[in-house]
């Protein structure tokens, strides 16, 4: 029998990520007053890393331990490495966030950064060994592994920047590398990973006949071209019109991926799309908004510094709280109930009626979560763009409520005990 990854490996990642999302919304509320200032602020660094690492990365790494065996058609190399990877990141992330929040970038933050990099190295080795023993290489697996390489590059650069804050050893000060660090993470890690996994799962969930490996390779090349050219331009060329090139390549890749999703949906056998899939598909739309903002940011390089700062804040907010969060909010209820259902009802299947996996979470709580999340995003973004603190507070409150209901539902799933339907 083909062994899939144990639920024990995956669940801690989900639980940790849920708590980080809640913490992220608390930090966001606390950071409302600083949204009128410069984006480089201790509180904003804290909230960004809480969302990027604690929420996004922990959730994706957890899900990857379950999904990579599906992609490579082979089993996970080591459960122990997965636990180790979780433990290192779980310790490192709060240390780093505490360091940012208090702006004490010395030993505590540096130790946090080292633990996070170590966690990623262990994760990457586990992934590489799993792929090596499966002998099944495919475009999805290449996306996932390359995304992990970009994650390692992002975290390593981040760690170097931390040390550079206390002892200047790089060519520029750390602020000069922030854009590079952020985009290696956003595009190299999150976008590439989401595309690699999404291109396999979207047709799978919709039962679509559509496949287009050549298109996926084209997307892969465009994304990496965008990233490599961005790294080169950022390091060696002063800001200018050339900086639009990576955006053009990345934008084309996103458009092609949008086409891939559309074609998959068009050719699907399963007509009814559930709420969780709808929330995840919303993320494709939410990706377009930060891309337009990014275009404006690059455009504003030639105009006003003040407008540029506002656009950068809106862009960063929409990436982490909008795009990445909407995918996770939807997909957690698409994956976690199945993992827990598998654990609880594995022996009972076929012997009588059991609840469906979707019965493990409360759909009313899910709806309240979605209904406080979407206005929360829109109101907070308006607050940033119009510089209105009251909108920022209302938006942050909406997101906090959304995170509370998300956590409530996640706990409900995790504590599910066997019942007869």
């Amino acid at each position, binding site marked *: 029998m083909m062994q*899939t990854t144990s639920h024990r490996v995956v669940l801690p990642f989900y639980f940790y990520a849920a708590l980080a999302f809640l913490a992220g919304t608390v930090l966001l509320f606390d950071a409302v007053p600083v949204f009128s200032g410069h984006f480089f602020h201790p509180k904003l660094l804290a909230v960004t890393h809480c969302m990027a690492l604690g929420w996004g990365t922990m959730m994706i790494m957890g899900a990857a331990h379950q999904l990579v065996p599906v992609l490579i*058609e082979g*089993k996970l190399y080591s459960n122990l490495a997965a636990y180790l990877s979780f433990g290192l990141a779980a310790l490192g992330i709060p240390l780093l966030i505490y360091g940012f929040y208090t702006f004490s970038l010395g030993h505590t933050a540096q130790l946090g950064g080292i633990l996070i990099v170590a966690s990623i190295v262990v994760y990457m080795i586990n992934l590489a060994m799993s792929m090596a023993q499966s002998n099944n290489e495919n475009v999805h697996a290449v996306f996932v592994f390359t995304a992990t390489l970009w994650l390692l590059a992002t975290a390593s650069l981040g760690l170097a920047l931390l040390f550079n804050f206390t002892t200047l050893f790089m060519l520029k000060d750390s602020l000069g590398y922030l854009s590079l660090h952020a985009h290696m993470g956003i595009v190299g890690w999150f976008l590439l990973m989401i595309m690699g996994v999404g291109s396999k799962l979207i047709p799978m969930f919709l039962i679509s006949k559509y496949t287009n490996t050549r298109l996926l390779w084209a997307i892969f090349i465009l994304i990496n071209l965008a990233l490599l050219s961005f790294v080169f331009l950022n390091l060696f060329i002063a800001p200018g019109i050339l900086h639009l090139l990576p955006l053009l390549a990345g934008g084309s890749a996103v458009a092609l991926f949008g086409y891939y999703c559309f074609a998959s949906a068009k050719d699907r056998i399963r007509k*009814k799309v559930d709420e969780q899939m709808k929330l995840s598909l919303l993320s494709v739309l939410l990706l377009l908004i930060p891309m337009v903002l990014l275009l404006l940011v690059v455009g504003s390089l030639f105009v006003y510094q003040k407008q540029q700062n506002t656009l950068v804040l809106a862009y960063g907010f929409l990436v982490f709280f909008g795009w990445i969060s909407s995918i996770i909010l939807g997909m957690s209820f698409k994956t976690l109930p199945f993992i827990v259902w*598998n654990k609880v009802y*594995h*022996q009972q299947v*076929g*012997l009588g009626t059991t609840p*469906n996996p979707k019965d493990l979470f409360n759909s009313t709580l899910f709806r309240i979560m979605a209904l406080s999340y979407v206005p929360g995003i829109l109101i907070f973004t308006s607050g940033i763009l119009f510089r209105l603190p009251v909108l920022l507070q209302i938006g942050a409150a909406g997101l906090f409520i959304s995170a509370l209901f998300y956590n409530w539902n996640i706990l409900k799933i995790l504590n599910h005990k066997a019942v007869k339907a």
Partner: protein
Amino acid sequence: MNERTNNSVKCAMALTALYQVFDPELGINVVDMGLIYAIDFNETKKQIACEMTLSTPFCPMGDSITQGVKNALEQAFPEYTLSLELTFDPPWTQEHISEEGRIYLNN
């Protein structure tokens, strides 16, 4: 009843039992999903040979689905021993879904 007819009746009974095993994501039973490739009864050895597949190798729900097939057949035929073989040759495709399965997915 001759042996061949008997085998057909038993296979029909086995399929009836397997109609109660569902793919938890899609809500279709494993028969309409096209996951069951073959069922054969050996009356001499009192054995059931069942050949099945999954929609993808290392499917996260694979263990539960195969366990479900095992449970359903063992419950329906307690006097038989079950030999369950998981194969990916040929691999499952959407074409394996029955007309009933397609109608269910369309609604």
